[in-house]
């Protein structure tokens, strides 16, 4: 069963790298947006909520196409990042991570937002009356109280990033060793005449990772529920 080829291993490690980078960079944004949606009332609150959830309802190929238009080498954002910061997304593993981050973002924001909403907002006020600045109150009180939500968000985001296919293949194609993640590899294997066995192995591995992530998040969520 675990008779993996070099290509399979490359795809697995690439997937872990892409999902890890996606989760690592998306989590701070998810915390910020989740906190803003939970605690602040501002014009455009509903619009921001809708935009965050958009990748959940759009066809992934459309999201990938939008990323291509915006972050491609000639896209407005992609050209700017390339010229000024030397960051290129198009047809690189970083692009795969960006696509995975955008697609998993709604799944990360939701538990983070719920965690902030379930904590008493007056606790931060109590911290401030004791001399803590807004930032300290956030770092010492609000963030630790939402820690489980952040963990759940990170796990769900990681699992989703691991399985992202549509937006990734549209945005960065399926280049072996660069952007061919597990789902892309399975799809490529299925196109080949004798790839079924390899495809089965990769499918089993990705299913195992996904189930493990779900179990972990369920366990954490029930702990979160039990405490409050």
């Amino acid at each position: 069963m675990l008779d993996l080829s070099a290509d399979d291993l490359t795809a697995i490690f690439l997937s872990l790298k892409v999902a890890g980078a996606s989760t690592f960079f998306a989590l701070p944004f998810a915390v910020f947006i989740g906190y803003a949606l939970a605690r602040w009332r501002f014009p455009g609150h509903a619009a921001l909520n809708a935009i965050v959830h958009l990748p959940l309802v759009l066809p992934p190929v459309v999201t990938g196409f939008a990323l291509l238009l915006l972050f491609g080498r000639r896209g407005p954002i992609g050209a700017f990042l390339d010229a000024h910061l030397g960051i290129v997304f198009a047809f690189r593993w970083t692009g795969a991570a960006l696509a995975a981050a955008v697609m998993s973002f709604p799944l990360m924001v939701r538990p983070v937002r719920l965690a902030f909403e379930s904590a008493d907002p007056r606790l931060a006020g109590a911290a401030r009356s004791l001399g803590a600045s807004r930032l300290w109150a956030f770092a010492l009180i609000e963030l630790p109280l939402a820690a489980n939500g952040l963990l759940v968000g990170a796990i769900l985001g990681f699992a989703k990033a691991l399985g992202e296919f549509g937006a990734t293949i549209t945005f960065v194609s399926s280049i072996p060793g660069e952007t061919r993640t597990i789902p892309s590899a399975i799809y490529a294997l299925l196109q080949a005449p004798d790839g079924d066995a390899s495809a089965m192995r990769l499918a089993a591995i990705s299913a195992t990772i996904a189930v493990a992530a779900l179990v972990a998040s369920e366990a954490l969520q029930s702990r979160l529920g039990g405490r409050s």
Partner: protein
Amino acid sequence: MISLDLRLKREDFELSCALTSDARVLALHGPSGAGKSTLAHLIAGVIRPDDGRIVVDGVTLVDTESGVCLPPEKRRIGVVFQDALLFPHLSVKSNILFGQFFTPAAERRAPFDAIIETLGVGHLLDRRPATLSGGERQRVAFARALLSSPRLLLMDEPMAALDHARRLEIMSLIEKLRDEFRTPIVLVSHSAEEIARLADEAVIIDKGHILARGAPLDVLPGASRLIEGGRFGLINSLAARIASVDETYGVTRLAHPAGEILVTARLGGTGAARVAVRATDVALAKSSPIDTSVRTILRGTIAKIDANGSPLAFVTLELAGGDKLVAAVTRLALDELGLAKGSEVFALVKSVALDERSL
């Protein structure tokens, strides 16, 4: 010393208050929605006034004219909330030390050991807030606020969430804090009993305006009649001293300049004690009765009679020693006894109405 002059306008509410006080315990009293919590929020910095100023202990916290409005963390107002609001993810010890951590080293005047001992939280330090009882939580909240070396302790209905026994415990603690640590206290309370016992000065607020202010006894009877409309809200507060405990009968004798006060409980110590007496538990007599079961008989002179044509009259007595005592009696009885301002009378208080609940 607190001095404030504030105006705040909301769609359905308008607040306009000005007062200066150097009371050790200043009470803000009024019905819910009167604006006493709004005033507390203005002092704590949770909300900003439209215009006005707040000066505490010589430090200007807010002055809209010169554009000063310190954020809550710079005000050093120790706030105690109704439901304690301890940080659930931290130990009791970390909770207590939270404010001290943010207090500049030069300003840390709060004595840790004395505060821990007075509040009796030493044995709780390693516990989590979730495992504490309501009274314990409130004690930890007091310690936390005090250890931030505040310029002012602001207590927003600190006893409203507690049962009667816990309330008595916390009241005597506030008395201790008032007497041992010199931090001035602003107490927001809707309970006339709490204010009569704890405050030096009371401010009655309704619809965002100050209706009356002065010594609790002077402002509470009239004001509480106005606000609460109930004669049972009239509470007297007498300063006495514990004289002796009678173990055989389980009672404590308190010495008061106007006479002995008998309480149906064993009180420890020999210190000062305050007794809260409901106006409805006081009867009046022209001569000291001999054959009566009433053990507490206090001598006084009628200083004021409020009747307003109602069946009830509120008679304010000036007792020997200076305490005032309000008795609620029928106007009929007053006329039949021929009592008027200046009459010498004896106030009879049933000891059973003075169990430890009223202490």
